[in-house]
């Protein structure tokens, strides 16, 4: 009887957690972790014969001797899962993150991780706060280059065949690495 009760309690718990997580995720649009879910890979997209415009954030590094090199964020963070690199770069350098006057938003401390998430999501100066990290990361990955500035731009590629019009690129911002 004890075993049976345990089994049914576990069954009820599993169903309750599953339904609660599915509801929270569908209402808030944010997925918790751990989550009882497999990737949804939402659909839509393009017909089977059409090409697709894809955006990508790229880094143009200017060296101290005046050369300009394009660095793919995937190379900057080689070894990190590619989808994580895309998520990180898009989060840091999206539009509205380049306001140099912005103070870091105030955060409460009753749930420090939650506070930091809310503060960073609202932070209009977040991109500029990555200057020190980017300087160190570039030095570690490309020690033979002496880089003074990095222009972060969004490009649009039409795929396939892959075609890009450089004139359509959008500069998101520029980080002067020598600045404090």
């Amino acid at each position, binding site marked *: 009887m004890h*075993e*049976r009760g345990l*089994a049914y309690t*576990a*069954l009820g718990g*599993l169903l309750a957690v*599953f339904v609660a997580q599915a509801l*929270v995720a569908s209402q808030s649009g*944010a997925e*918790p*972790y*751990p*989550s*009882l*879910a*497999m*990737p*949804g*890979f*939402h*659909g*839509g*997209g*393009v*017909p*089977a014969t059409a090409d*697709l415009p*894809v*955006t990508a954030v790229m880094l143009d590094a200017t060296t101290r001797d005046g050369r300009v090199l394009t660095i*793919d964020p*995937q190379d900057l*963070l*080689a*070894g*990190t*899962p590619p*989808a*994580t690199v*895309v*998520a*990180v770069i*898009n*989060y*840091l350098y999206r539009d509205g993150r380049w306001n140099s006057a912005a103070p870091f938003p105030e955060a409460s401390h009753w*749930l*420090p*991780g*939650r*506070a*930091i*998430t809310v503060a*960073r*999501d609202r932070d209009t100066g977040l991109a500029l*706060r990555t200057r020190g*990290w*980017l300087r160190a*990361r570039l030095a570690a990955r490309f020690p033979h280059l002496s880089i003074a500035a990095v222009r972060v731009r969004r490009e649009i*590629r039409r*795929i*396939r065949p892959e075609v890009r019009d450089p004139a359509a690129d959008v500069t998101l911002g520029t980080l002067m690495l020598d600045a404090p």
Partner: protein
Amino acid sequence: MTRARLDRWLFETFVADAASLAVVRVLTGVVLLVSVFPRWLWVSALPEAAYHPPVGLALLVASPPPSVFYVTLNVVGMTGAVLLMLGMWTTAASLVVSAVLLLGNTFAYAFGKIDHDILLVLLPLAGAAAGWGHALGWRADATTGTTTGGRRWPLALFALLIALVMARSGHDKAFTGWLDPSRAAVRTHLLRDLPTGRTTGTARLALDTWPPALWEAADIAAVSLEVSFLVAVWWRRSWLTVLAAACVFHFANSLLFGIQFLWNPVAYGLFVPWATIAPTRGLVGHWPRVRRALPIVAVVALLLGMWRVGFGLVAVPATAAQAWLSDVVLLAAAAVLGAASLLHVTARAVRALRP
């Protein structure tokens, strides 16, 4: 469903023998060592400014832990994996491995991308609850395959969990356009992957050669398979058939998308009677002799693992490439077993139809 039928499903549908469960425990240990660990070493390369944890344990911490935290987790996790392989303190080792995976993932997924490897985290817990430590142990002799494992209902619950998560994924796809004949979802996702540089050669070949009908068929097949888990979970035979098809599906996904869900086929293994089928019957039968070599295997595995952690700290890309290769090889093996099982089921059905 009546209470009696629910009882039957919960306590009788997924009865497994101890030796078969133990085969999966040994396999889990191997996969953890070969493919899963070392893990998370790349986190220390990410900027702290990108740390913005989702709802979960990481909400309690305002910044990601230092790299020594991930190194420690890797060492503890690999030690747990070796213990699982050896069959020593299996319940404790299972709990430790699950806890390590949960903790490491909690912080690694606080940078905006959550990987859906929940079955990997829960597999050791389900295996321990089902009794995968009752055979093929360090001290115990191999069982004959007739001894049942521990409790019966954990396997039923784990099957339901797998069915629910897969069906939820299928539901999301079905209601966001995967069944729309004017849109090709699989192709669109492959195109979107191109700028990330993770596009496989198989994907490029498919993009160049597949006709529109094949793209649509791929969309429908993915949704159908994922939803069918929830239909099949109530009967053991249909469940095993869907799991066999899913092994082929995961291998196809790894070839097309370059995403490895290796732990899913390993988790499906909990439902397979390994002690009675050819590839693993020999391992069970010869376990008393096999276990004599285990101390050497354990020492080599642990040293190799530690070397990979150390190497991973200085050469993360190389470690990731090694893991990718071992994943593909193991997924291919699972796909071969799945395809063989499907052929067997088809042949049996054809024989049954004959007058």
